[in-house]
């Protein structure tokens, strides 16, 4: 029997949920094991970096990479695995567009260090020690990878073949994608074109959502803890910021169906460059304040009052897509 194709999965700046979602395909994981040999998968099997380094180039058939690029180690491993893999898949929202780790792009490296190592109320660090990339100790030099100022998505550091969005990707979508690749390998069926976003639908989450929708006119927005949503009715119509209109479907509208507004994890719609800007546009168009018959000052006041009820537009609209947004990060001066 011919040698089995090799599978790798690596994590960088992420939560580990993507690994769990792969295991969450349940008994089908046995089929994965039947088809693939695991070549590198720190979450479930004991491989070391030197094992990967020893592989010939393109030895790994399929590398599922989850996590954003937050530090030097992430970037180094991304280059290494790219070199050793035939197909590199940005797996999950962090690798695809930055996700939660990239929300750190709204602040600075310095502010993060201050919060984590110096000003945290539960911290006991009287000498104000912070990690340095290199320290001299009696035994020699100790080094750790440098922490970047800006979080990047995987394709900002290496070439990516396919993208599989989601936080985490849904098990049936993962399975569908694995099947496409397996049948391409075993039966020679054509692969999707390079750069494709796979395991998604081409319609917005709203299209997949069964909640009852009518005209949206919102005079105040609520944060999730401020309101108990009425069952069966569109959340956006109730003033809950739901990213459905600006988010690609494929998840089956899981969140809105259980009363939580869509977070936006499947990323922008096809043809859209900036999910946050599109969401901003969608939200602004349902603001039910201001009428053409009003005086300008009154208009301003009314609209501003509604805008004020949206607590954190950047963090909300770019919750998953900051690293891939048009501006990519905030401009910060010093430690703010």
């Amino acid at each position, binding site marked *: 029997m011919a040698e089995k194709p090799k599978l790798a999965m690596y994590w960088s700046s992420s939560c580990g949920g993507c690994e769990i979602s792969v295991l969450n395909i349940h008994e089908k994981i046995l089929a994965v094991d039947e088809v693939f040999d695991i070549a590198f998968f720190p979450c479930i099997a004991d491989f070391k970096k030197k094992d990967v380094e020893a592989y010939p180039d393109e030895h790994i058939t399929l590398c599922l990479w989850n996590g954003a690029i937050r530090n030097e180690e992430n970037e180094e491993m991304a280059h290494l695995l790219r070199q050793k893999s035939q197909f590199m898949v940005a797996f999950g929202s962090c690798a695809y567009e930055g996700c939660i780790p990239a929300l750190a792009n709204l602040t600075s490296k310095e502010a993060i260090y201050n919060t984590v190592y110096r*000003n945290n109320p539960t911290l006991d660090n009287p*000498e104000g020690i912070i990690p340095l990339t290199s320290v001299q100790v009696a035994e020699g030099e100790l080094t750790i990878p440098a922490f970047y100022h800006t979080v990047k998505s995987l394709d900002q550091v290496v070439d990516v073949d396919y993208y599989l969005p989601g936080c985490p990707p849904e098990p049936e979508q993962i399975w569908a994608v694995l099947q496409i690749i397996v049948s391409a390998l075993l039966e020679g069926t054509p692969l999707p074109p390079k750069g494709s976003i796979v395991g998604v639908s081409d319609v917005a989450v709203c299209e997949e959502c069964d909640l009852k929708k009518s005209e949206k006119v919102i005079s105040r927005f609520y944060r999730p803890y401020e309101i108990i949503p009425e069952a069966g009715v569109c959340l956006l119509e109730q003033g809950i910021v739901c990213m459905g209109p600006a988010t690609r479907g494929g998840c089956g509208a899981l969140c809105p169906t259980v009363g939580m507004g869509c977070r936006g994890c499947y990323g922008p719609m096809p043809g859209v460059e900036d999910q946050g800007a599109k969401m901003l546009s969608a939200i*602004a168009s349902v603001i039910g304040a201001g009428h*053409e018959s009003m005086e300008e000052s009154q208009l301003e006041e009314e609209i501003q009052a509604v*805008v004020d009820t*949206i607590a*954190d537009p950047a963090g909300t609209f770019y919750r998953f897509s900051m690293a891939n*947004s048009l*501006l990519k990060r905030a401009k910060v001066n010093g430690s703010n």
Partner: protein
Amino acid sequence: MSEKFEPVIVGFLCNWCSYRAADLAGTARIKYAPNMRPIRVMCSGRVDPQFVLKALREGADGVMIAGCHPGECHYVNGNIKAMRRFYLLKKMLTQLGVEEERVQLVWASASEGILLAEKVDQMTESLRALGPLNWDEEVVQCCNEYEFAETLPVLEET
């Protein structure tokens, strides 16, 4: 800096009022700052927030959105929609560290060539005072090499 900094303003002007105001400013030979690059759109309501972000990302120092006065929109309420977007965008841009002066909403009717010229002059001067935005180099590419000093003073408890 040896050369005087000339800000680049991308102006989205509505076809029915503000673009005509700019036209009038031209035919009336009003002298005003040549820093705005006008782009004609059918309505200020057509201005997608993506246009604004893209302009800032790709080198503009500021963006001006100009349309008909409220109540005078050719499409009844396109400018009201522009206004809603603008206020929310302004709030978001503040979080992203973009100074308030860099994105402005202006109303100028077809007869207000002088007003539009004045607004462009004012915006040019305020951007000149702020300095270049240079988003890609100064913000996106910057600071990864930045390292902390080895000894940092311990902050006072707050």
